[in-house]
Structures are given as structure tokens and as C-alpha cells.
């Protein structure tokens, strides 16, 4: 009954163009942000920050990056983890090699580096589509990780490419507690999500979707395919790159190239499939879902095994995880190809009309 837009008339196109045109949604998002920025830091424990909230935000950002490329511009990529790796290593190198480099600037430069690499590997998209492109992005995945392992310069001559990043320090303040790192990541991710939303609701985003839905028609309208696709590759890689930098600096502290494996790329792809292809909100929902599944299984499987008196070792749990991931992907693609974001939307529409069925 409370979720009603009755009486909210829009009298200008500006009002109609807001991100959240319905008042209740605006209140909802304000409450959510206040909760995330104020209540959570005051109440959550270290386990929550380190094991759930920080990785959730970082993977949301990476999923957002992939969603820009795959969901909005329609170019399937299987190499997101590699672009995260580029971001992580670039940020590290900017930090280590340039004296007094501000951390935030090195994150931005890391994103730009990833964007440059993204453009390079996006070039084939001008001539190929679909599966062909997906296979081509595998080249990025394997080649980049190999380079990071084999060129000692890139990891500042550390053994087997492992890098340990310095503490994040901005304007003299050191982000050494989980709370502070959480707040930093939350701020960056919220800001970048807002920027992404702005892009996809303006002509940049429309050009992406036009190329995705019908490239010949887009061309006829005067959209330049090359520029549009490469821009999508660049921005997507920028997002993945920043996510990678945060992954190293605010989450793990030390990373190795093999950590950015094909498996991680798939996980990010799964996030957008489950969350919703072509939806900003979906990137967040998907990241949460995919991160929570293993945690959920870790809790449920031992409990089940005790109940049924079946031995379950850790290998079994990890195999079960693979199967559950696989099943989830197939399930969502069959039942709701637009993912959780679409379910959320349907739910809201139902609520708007409730208690009337139509």
C-alpha cells in the first residue's frame, strides 16, 4: 500500500529523467546509502568487512565493468579478470615507482592503463562478433596473466610475480582498519556506479545498446561502430582495472598473477548473468549472490552431511560449488535471462498494483 506513485505527476521532462522517478525509490536509496555509510561501519565486525562487504563491493564494480561491455554494448568477454590484473599491477607500479604518487591518482591511472589494454584487445571486435570475440578475449586472459608472471619488471622483480602493496594513505590518513577500507571502497564504488548509470541513460549508453540490439540499423543512424565498441571496451576495462586495483590495495594486500585466472573471469560473467545483463543494479545483486553461494554451501553442506551421516570433505564441497554454479547459470538463463534485476522489477510492479492483480 505504501509503494504507490499515485499523485506524483511529472510536469517536466527533467523530472521524468531522474534516475529514480518514483518518490518511494528515492527515499529507499537514501536510506540504503545512509545505512551503508553510517550504520554498517558502526556495527559490522571485521569478518563482515574483510570476507563479505569489501569483496562484494569490489566484485560489484568488476561486474559493472563487464556489464557495460557485455550487457549494454553486447560484446561478450571472457577476460575480465585479466583486466583486473592489469589494474592491480599498474596501480602497484605507479605507487612503487613514482615517489609521492597519490593513491587515488594511481587508481585512476591504473584504470586508464587497463582501458588502453582493453582497447587493444577490443580491436578484433570490429571484425568479429559473438563466440569469435569471446574466444579472442581468451587471448587477453592468457596472454596478460603470462606477461605478468614472466616479465619481472612488472612485479618489481619479486618471486613468481607476487606483489605486496603498501598501505593506502590519502592526505596523511592511513586506511589500515577494515572499516576505513570499507568506506573508501564504498565511496569509490558508489561514485563509479553513479557515473555508469549516467552514461547508460544518455546517448553514450543508447549508442551501446543500439550496437548490441541491431548493429546495421545503428550504423545507418550514423553511430560509428568502431568508436562505440572501443569506447565500451575502454570504459569496461577502466572499471575492471579500478576494481583490480582495489582488489589488491583494499582487499587482499598481496596478489599474484594466477589469482586473476580464467575462473575469476567466469565468476564475474556469472555475476552479470545471475544479476541481470544490462542492469547496473543487477551487477550488485549478482555479485552478492555469487559471493554468498560458497559461504552458504560451506555452512549448509557440513550440516547436511551430519544430518545424513555422509562424510563430506573440503574437495567435495568445492566440487559441489562448481555444480551449483553451473546449475544456477543454466537455471537463470532458462527461467529468467534478465536475472535478479528483472525479478526485482517485476516485484516492484506487482507491489505498485497490489492488492489488484492487474
Amino acid at each position, binding site marked *: 500500500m505504501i509503494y504507490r506513485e499515485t499523485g506524483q505527476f511529472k510536469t517536466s521532462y527533467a523530472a521524468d529523467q531522474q534516475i529514480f522517478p518514483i518518490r518511494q525509490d528515492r527515499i529507499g536509496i537514501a536510506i540504503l546509502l545512509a545505512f551503508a555509510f553510517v550504520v554498517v561501519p558502526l556495527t559490522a565486525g571485521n569478518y563482515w568487512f574483510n570476507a563479505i562487504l569489501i569483496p562484494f563491493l569490489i566484485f560489484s564494480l568488476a561486474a559493472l565493468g563487464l556489464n557495460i561491455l557485455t550487457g549494454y554494448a553486447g560484446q561478450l568477454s571472457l577476460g575480465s579478470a585479466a583486466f583486473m590484473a592489469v589494474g592491480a599491477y599498474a596501480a602497484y607500479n605507479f605507487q612503487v615507482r613514482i615517489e609521492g604518487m597519490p593513491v587515488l591518482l594511481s587508481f585512476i591511472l591504473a584504470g586508464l592503463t587497463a582501458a588502453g589494454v582493453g582497447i587493444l584487445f577490443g580491436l578484433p571486435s570490429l*571484425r568479429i562478433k559473438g563466440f569469435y570475440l569471446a574466444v579472442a578475449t581468451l587471448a587477453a586472459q592468457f596472454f596478460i596473466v603470462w606477461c605478468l608472471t614472466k616479465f619481472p619488471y612488472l612485479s618489481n622483480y619479486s618471486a613468481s610475480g607476487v606483489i605486496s602493496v603498501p598501505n593506502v594513505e590519502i592526505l596523511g590518513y592511513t586506511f589500515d582498519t577494515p572499516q576505513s577500507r570499507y568506506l573508501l571502497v564504498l565511496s569509490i564504488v558508489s561514485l563509479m556506479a553513479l557515473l555508469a548509470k549516467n552514461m547508460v541513460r544518455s546517448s553514450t549508453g543508447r549508442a551501446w545498446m543500439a550496437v548490441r540490439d541491431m548493429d546495421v540499423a545503428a550504423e545507418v543512424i550514423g553511430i560509428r561502430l568502431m568508436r562505440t565498441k572501443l569506447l565500451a571496451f575502454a570504459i569496461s576495462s577502466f572499471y575492471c582495472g579500478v576494481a583490480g586495483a582495489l582488489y589488491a590495495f583494499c582487499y587482499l594486500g598481496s596478489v599474484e598473477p594466477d589469482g586473476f585466472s580464467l575462473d575469476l573471469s567466469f565468476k564475474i560473467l556469472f555475476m552479470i548473468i545471475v544479476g541481470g545483463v544490462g542492469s547496473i543494479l543487477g551487477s550488485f545483486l549478482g555479485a552478492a549472490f555469487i559471493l554468498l553461494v560458497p559461504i552458504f554451501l560451506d555452512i549448509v553442506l557440513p550440516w547436511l552431511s551430519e544430518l545424513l551421516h555422509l562424510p563430506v570433505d573440503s574437495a567435495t564441497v568445492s566440487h559441489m560449488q562448481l555444480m551449483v554454479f553451473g546449475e544456477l547459470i543454466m537455471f537463470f538463463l532458462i527461467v529468467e535471462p534478465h536475472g535478479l534485476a528483472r525479478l526485482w522489477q517485476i516485484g516492484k510492479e506487482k507491489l505498485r498494483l497490489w492488492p489488484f492483480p492487474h
Partner: protein
Amino acid sequence: MQFFLEVLIGGLLSGVMYSLVALGFVLIFKASGVFNFAQGAMVFFAALSLVGCMEKGAPLWLAFILAFGIMTLLGIATEKFVLRKMVNQPPISLFMATIGLAFFIEGLAPLLWGNAVRRLDIGLVDEPIPWILEHWNMVISKFDLVAAGLALALVAVLALFFQYTRVGRALRAVADDHQAALSIGIPLQHIWALVWAVAGFVALVAGMLWGARNGVQFALTFTALKALPVLILGGFTSVPGAIVGGLIIGGTEKLAEIYIPPVMSGIFGGNFGGIEGWFPYVMALLFLLVRPEGLFGEKHIDRV
């Protein structure tokens, strides 16, 4: 020169193995338009099933038949529970579904058969052929040669099967135009299930040969991934393309692995091994820029 030839021949022979996996992709793609990313996982699953049956005491021939039965069941189940429910979806969604399928199979296989690395003995030894070693002083593996011969024989049988049997004709009709095939009474779903079974058979042969060579282990799925660049080279719809593409990838990656790292170490210092991990992909990518439709693929003209 002798060493070069030795490397090249070794590469070509292992390339035949890539061809074998690529062939499984091509079969399914031709018949149903599905790009089956799970083909690599199927190779792994088939090899594990084979080993599993043998561990339970079955002789090789019986284990082979049993494993084939399991692969057929898997294929039918995939068709029935996944693909049939996604008929109207865009090909890229189907592709992503097969990634899910790959994960599912990769989890299921070790759950059923255990996850230890297993040796698979099919009565072939990986040793140089003495006669060639004596006369040309080259190390050519007996195993590789026999395996390549077996793979080629399989390809030949499949080609004959498609060309001359009723089912083969139906398959080709389906590949050409689903709707038209349906309208003349070809049972589409049976054909798809059949194709998955045949792809399962190809996966089984590939899994058996590879498993016997390198041990049956999870890494098989990665090796099987190399079939993807093979497909790009050869074109998704071409059986000869899969073979030629496999040979090219096999040959060049081994040559690259031997000859490029020393050069790079000379320039940058350090160790640059492991090039074969990415070389096929990068080569396929560069190739795409020159010839997007592959060596044997059909050129596509957009109609508007």
C-alpha cells in the same frame, strides 16, 4: 633442421588431438547452432568415466562401451533439460549456458569418480620409434603416431557417416535449415540428442588418448580449451577446417615454445617458458583480423 622437424612433427601429432576436440565442437555447432563450451569438460568427464569403469574391474573394451553409454546419457540429458528449454534464445545465451554446463560437469565428474590424478593404460607406450631414431635420428613418439592415426580414422568414419547414411543426411539437413528440416518430418530433438551422443563419443576418444598420454586429471579441460583457437582458424562449420586448424595450432605452438623463449630471454633476461599457454589464442586473434570467417568458413553477407 632435424631438431626443427622433430619439434614440428611432435606438434602436428598433438595437433591432431586438438582437431579431435574441435571436431566435437563442429558437430554440435553444425547440427544445432550451439557453440558448446562444455566440450572440454566432456573430454574430462569421458576420460574419468573410462578410468572409473576400469578401476571397477572392467576391461578396456567394456569400459569404453560403458563410458560411451554414460556420455550418451549426458548428451540426452543436456538436450532435454537445457537446450530444449532455450530454443528461442539468442545463440550467445546458449553459449553462456554451455559455460554453466561445463562447470556442472567439472564438478560432477570428480564427485562421481574421485578427484585423484589417474593413469590410464590402453596398451600403448609413449616411447620413440626405434626405426626413425636409427635412420633419421629423430624422436617421434610411437604413442603420438598411433593416436594421430586413430584420430584420423575417426574423422574419416564420421565423414562417411555424414555423407552416406540416412541419419547423416538428416543431420546435414538440420544443419542447413532447422525449420525446413522440421517441416519435412525430421525429428529435430532426436537428431540433437544423437549429435550430442556423437560429440560424446568424440570426446571419449579424445579423453582416452589424452588421458593415456598425460594422465586423467582436471588439466585436461584446459588442454581441451585449445580447441577454441583451432575452431577460429578452421571456421566453426568445417570438418576439414577443424583438422587443418588443429595441425596448424599444434605445429606452431610447439615451434613457438621452443624457439621464442630463448630469443626473449636474450632481450629481457629471465625465463619465458609457457608460451604455448597463450600462443594459439593470440595467433587465432591475429588471424581473425585478416580472415574473420576462418580458413574454411563461409563468408557471411548481412541482409537488411
